[in-house]
């Protein structure tokens, strides 16, 4: 698996070259949000704001009303927690084209409870007019900008930084409201987003070897959530569906899937894996993924729970499983 170092840094510079309307606002986290070089490249399109996030939202709304497209770069928690009212009333209500580049989703930081965005998808999904997307690899980090820019309104992007795996080929960019099928099988649907996708990819082969067929769908769009392939996949599964998210299980991916299932009256079971309605604490990502059941082993345990069958898969089977960039499988039906 290729590991890409800071894919956003150069890509965003290149991408913004011919887009004079794009401006960047930070709130005293410029380098931590990987736009230090962007600032040096386009100093006149960069607003280095103070640590005063409420005001950043207002500034961005004003710039957006004047024709600019502000890309706010900071940690996720400082986008939807501290300035939620301003995000909602100054930006979401008027449907202004402000793009929130939200770093440190879920437990991807050792910064502890105050830095871990564990309920952002719930809150942004509940906020009208906001499109909610999440990057799962370097290809999505690179292609999410086009997705966000094309939308007439605010977009919340769960962004990855630092060392990011490339799971999807460069020529398969993120597409709005389209899931990627990464493996196929008849027993279960597994739905992941962001950092749990790599975990599920790690589990796919051992599970297949153990005779469990998984249809693995990678989700990059939390809202809208209308890809018909989701429902079709769940309907044809033998045992149902597992959602596996780097987020509380209330209001995020698991709930979005539950809504789709209940509205359609699908009589399959849903198992929601993720943070079980709890805040977390500061530790390494690997440690927290294990502690809160976000890793491949937790997914395997979930599969065993839903199928009622032991797989015999061990931690070392999972550790050895190599993850390679995968082309999305052709979908069962053309969509």
């Amino acid at each position: 698996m290729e590991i890409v170092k800071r894919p956003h840094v150069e890509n965003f510079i290149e991408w913004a070259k011919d887009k004079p309307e794009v401006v960047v606002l930070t709130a005293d986290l410029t380098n931590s949000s990987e736009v230090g070089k962007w600032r040096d490249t386009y100093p006149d399109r960069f607003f280095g704001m103070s640590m005063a996030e409420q005001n950043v939202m207002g500034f961005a709304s004003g710039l957006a009303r004047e024709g600019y497209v502000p890309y706010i770069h900071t940690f996720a928690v400082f986008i939807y927690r501290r300035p939620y009212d301003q995000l909602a009333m100054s930006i979401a209500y008027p449907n202004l084209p402000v793009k929130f580049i939200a770093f440190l989703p879920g437990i991807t930081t050792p910064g502890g409870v105050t830095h871990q965005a564990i309920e952002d998808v719930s809150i942004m999904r509940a906020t009208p007019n906001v499109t909610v997307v999440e990057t799962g690899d370097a290809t999505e980090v690179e292609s999410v900008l086009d997705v966000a820019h094309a939308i007439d309104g605010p977009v919340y992007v769960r962004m990855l930084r630092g060392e990011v795996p490339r799971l999807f080929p460069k020529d398969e960019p993120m597409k709005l409201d389209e899931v990627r099928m990464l493996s196929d099988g008849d027993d279960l649907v597994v739905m992941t987003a962001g950092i749990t996708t790599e975990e599920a990819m790690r589990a796919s082969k051992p599970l297949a070897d153990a005779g469990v067929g998984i249809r693995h769908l990678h989700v990059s769009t939390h809202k809208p959530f209308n890809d018909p392939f989701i429902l079709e996949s769940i309907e044809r599964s033998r045992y149902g569906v597992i959602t596996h998210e780097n987020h509380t299980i209330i209001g995020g991916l698991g709930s979005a899937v539950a809504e789709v299932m209940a509205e359609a009256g699908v009589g399959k079971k849903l198992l929601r894996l993720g943070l079980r309605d709890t805040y977390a604490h500061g530790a390494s990502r690997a440690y927290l993924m294990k502690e809160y059941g976000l890793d491949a082993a937790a997914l395997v345990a979930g599969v065993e729970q839903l199928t009622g069958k032991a797989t015999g898969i061990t931690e070392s089977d999972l550790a050895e499983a190599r993850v390679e960039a995968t082309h999305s499988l052709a979908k069962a039906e053309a969509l």
Partner: protein
Amino acid sequence: MTNPAPVGDWRVTTQSVADRIRTRVLDHVLRNNGGYMSQALSSAEIFAMLYTRIMNLGESTAPLVPRPFSGVPGSDNPDFFNGGEYNGPKSPEYDRFIFSPAHYALVLYTTLIEVGRLAENGLEQFDADGSTVEMIGAEHSPGVETTTGSLSQALSQAAGIAIARKRRGDTGKVWVMMSDGEFQEGQIWEAMSEAAKFDLDNLKVIVDVNGQQCDGCLDAENYVDPLTGRIQAFGASAIEVDGHDLDALDAAMSMETGKPHFVMALTNPTRGLPLFEERAPLLHYLRFVSNEEKALYEAAYEEMVN
């Protein structure tokens, strides 16, 4: 003003708009058995100054008779229109008006009527079902460009507009009208500090310092008196004036200070309707408690218009 201004003088026009704001709002409050009265009494001169003397606005591009509500903004709603159209086109040389204390909407609508930007019967739509003439203005409401009913968000919004206009080289200013209670929210101080840092000298703010908020009087010693000093300490210019004195307002609102500029208009929330003083300190919203009381206000109204 000690001497009455000569006919043809701007002061005559402006004062008469202010006077008519007071009477029309009182008339409305009488008809509706309640309303935001004190705000009109305290800020009549402020709005009259903005719309007749200070702001450089083009002709309204909106219909005189307010359009009904046509849905909230959204990418799927092409019918949405913005209330800022009542303040004329957006153009480099024109000023912009950002209206902050959304519960002052009745005063704003009334001002638009008095300056010919809104039909007289526009007020009949006030707080009516399906109307844009909302009690708490939102950005579809006449004269309202941004949504500010969650108070104290306008200054940041206006600063964003001002910085964009500065970059573009627009000569027009961005005028913000605020209430004094709004300075209790932390966001104001964030906005102020940043507006000063970015040298937004095209940002002009007029504040109705009426010493009032929902729970009654603002604390004079701990809040109202120090307010101007606080603003100055945050890097903006601020000047206190009698908010009912047109010449004083004119001078203060015309100053160029090279900084974001705040005109602190010290006002009286019962100005022109001394009867209302009996309600002090609870002046935020007037609701008649009896027919007798209402009759007193009716009599006061007759006196004001005659």
